[in-house]
């Protein structure tokens, strides 16, 4: 039911922000109280990658910054 959440490492995060050309504040947010965030033990400021099913593309990728 819950789509795949992956915690990005520091390097991966920096790489991602560079590629997207955005700062952390420009990413969509996810709460520290979110169960998946707790499960991944992600801290405030970490970036979580979402892989989920999409009716148009099969699989789609999204990113959330933990706040």
């Amino acid at each position, binding site marked *: 039911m819950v789509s795949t959440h992956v915690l990005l490492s520091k390097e991966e995060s920096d790489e991602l922000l560079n590629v*997207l050309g955005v700062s952390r*504040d420009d990413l*969509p947010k996810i709460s520290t109280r979110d169960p998946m965030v707790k499960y991944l033990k992600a801290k405030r400021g970490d970036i979580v990658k979402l892989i989920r099913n*999409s009716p*148009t*593309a099969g699989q*789609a*990728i*999204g990113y959330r910054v933990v706040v």
Partner: protein
Amino acid sequence: MSLSNKKIVKGIKFGLLSPEKIVKQAVVEINSPETYDQDGLPVPGGLMDRRLGTVEPSQRCETCGARAGKCPGHFGYIRLERPVIHPGLAKKIHETLSAVCRECGRIKLSDEELEEYEKQMKELEGRNPNLAKALSKTVIKKASQVNVCPHCGATNYSIEYERPTTFYEEMGGKKGEASSLVRIPPTEIRIRLEKINSVEANLLGWDNEVARPEWSVLTYLPVPPISMRPAITLETGLRSEDDLTHKLVDILRANEKLKEHISSGAPQSVIDDVWELLQYHVITYFDNETQGAPSSRHRSGRPLRTLAQRLKGKEGRFRGNLLGKRVDFSSRSVISPDPWIGINEVGVPIEVAKILTIPEKVTDLNIDRMKELVKRGPNNYPGANYVVRPNGVMVDLRYVKDTNEIGNELGQGFIVERHLRDGDVVLFNRQPSLHRPSIMGHVVRVLPYRTFRLNPAVCPPYNADFDGDEMNLHVPQGEEAEAEAKEILLVENNLLSPRFGGPLMGAIQDFISGAFLLTRKSVLLEKGEVMDLLYAGSYEGPLPPPAITQPRPLWTGKQIVSLFIPESITYSSKANSCVGCGDCKYDDCPGDGFVYVKDGELLMGVLDKKSIGATVPNSLLHRIVKDAGVAAGREFMDKAFKVFLRYSEGNGFTVGLKDLEIPNTVREALKKRIKEVEGEIDEAIAAYERGEVEAEAGKTVEEEIEDTIMSKLTKLRDEVGDTAAKNMDHESHSYMMALTGARGSVLNLTQISAIVGQQSSRGGRIVRGYSDRTLPVFDHGDMSAKGRGFVESSFYEGLSPVEFFFHAVTGREGLVDTAVRTSQSGYMQRRLIHALEDLHVEYDGSVRGAEGELIEVKYGDDGVDPAKSDHGIALNVDRIIDKVLKEGEVE
């Protein structure tokens, strides 16, 4: 303004006007309720004081010396004899009073608590305004519950607020005494608010720098300049003052009365009454729709339009004047159809073309033409209305005695505002403008009479019909706007929907009937007929060899149509007349339902809605537009559609009652069948009443019997409908229209000729009306088919009064639903547009918000632009295989 001293607005901060500021920004104190003296001159110190600025062009402003247009107007002020509550802030005052001590003005929380809250507030301020607001709410809530001030030990009472601006303290109530409400006068409120220190004011949600709590109790009132409330002079010469002026007069009168009473030492109760009156006038001056205060009215009984009313609502300053403005160079008229003009065109009445103008710069290339237009003047049709000289002076040709003179004066640098002419591009719009194709560019075709004309094929995107619809027309002013209209907005560039990539426009109604008639197998045309049709389609080129040469040359309808299909098109599909045999018989199809176009030649099949209709996916028209280009698509629609119409005109196309007759024997058989099923239903009801019906899981017995009846009736209607449809005259034009999709459905036909069927209300059979029955002609609790809205008659036979009533119930419900739905979806759309308006797709394919924030990594997850897709799918693989293998080919 030069570029260097331009300032960038970073933000706007709202606050309260302090009494000092009110006085300082004012140029005059207003204290006289009189506006004009006996001579009709403004009274100094009155509401029309000359120092407040002027709106009359003959006068100069006494303050700044500028004339009407240039003088911005200047504020005055009124000194209120007694303070009054600002009605918009009454709630905030109540919160504040409840939270602070009545004696010392401190928040009724301990020093430690306050320190903690102040620290939190400092952290939140500026960073997160929403949380700061929430914090002050908790402070207020906590402090309001304290009775004894922790700072000075004074006893506090709970404060009651009565709309709109009255406050009470709940005194007493100790030791079984009855509590009594004591009113707190605004003077006292102001004193208490003054005591609050700046840090604690911030904690209570006041922005201390720009909004001190005590400023919410007004001691001075600003008087807006006359330019904000101009009087209008009626034809009779009488002056009619603005509503704001009226209200300000009321305030001044009450204020003066209050002053008299105070100075004459009137009893307190009298003073309080007048004070209350002053408060009322101030309330309604701010907002005449305040809850708890009766609205202030004009002599005629019309409610006054005061400050809040000027801003609020659809016609208020924001929605009416700032977000929506009226424009020049536009026109509106009733629309009517004209299939003989192109889909790119719009017919514009001459009378309109003489008023709407296009500015054209005079150059060496057009000077002779421009001279001629100017000489013809504003009243002879291809003429001009204005000439702009190189120095920027505009000459209105209506008032020029000799247009020849100014015509000869023309040279480079002049601009001529010439009449609209054939070939100009204009924007055409029909409200509600729900999607992009609600405004499209059309090429002008100046025509006689007074309606805008448009080709019926472009009705679908506008959702237009001709039962009185009106449309708007806008003329682009300038080359850039014109180029955009031509290259982006033109109808042919909008043939495909930006929402799903399918065709939005196409054949409707008679176009479809005509296409079907022409492409049927039985059509064989004489040479003369062929010539006539091709002339209608402005065909240029050789005649194809006739399909039949003996005894005389004859052409098929399909040959004629083929002349208009681009050569690159190869296409196959099934028409509506396809009976759906498992194995396609292709050319031998009884309904000629297999449509096959090879290299632009219609080899088999009839054209109908499925091939050339509007908003039909994967149609022949779709293929033409996509594979051969929009220009080819437009040409096909412009030319072939005219041929279809011409053929249907020559052939004759009409409907009559006879079309819908079914043989009497069949009719009787159907009636018998209806009676049979009604009998079955009565049996089922009897069984239910005996308690023999068992419900399926999840249903009550009532639902079970209801479902049983409904399914029996639906089945009956389908069965009767099918039989009736089979026995109808399939060559009749009515049936033909239903079959080809030109208009109506087979269901409509069976309702006319066989049975109307079950009427519904609120998603089920009709049950409402009298207690336990729909109408008094039925027994209580009658559940039979007839008693619950089953109409067994057909429109052909006519309905019984009871059936007619049921039919009206359904009809009315449909009408109400439509009305409710449109208003609801309209509001939803408004909200959605405001929420989504600044989203855009960046060059990297991601969706970003206004400030570059990431919304979606890839638009729609797959990055496909639906406008260029095939119904949302980027690549129609089947279609490509088809094209490469020419699989549709049949030998």
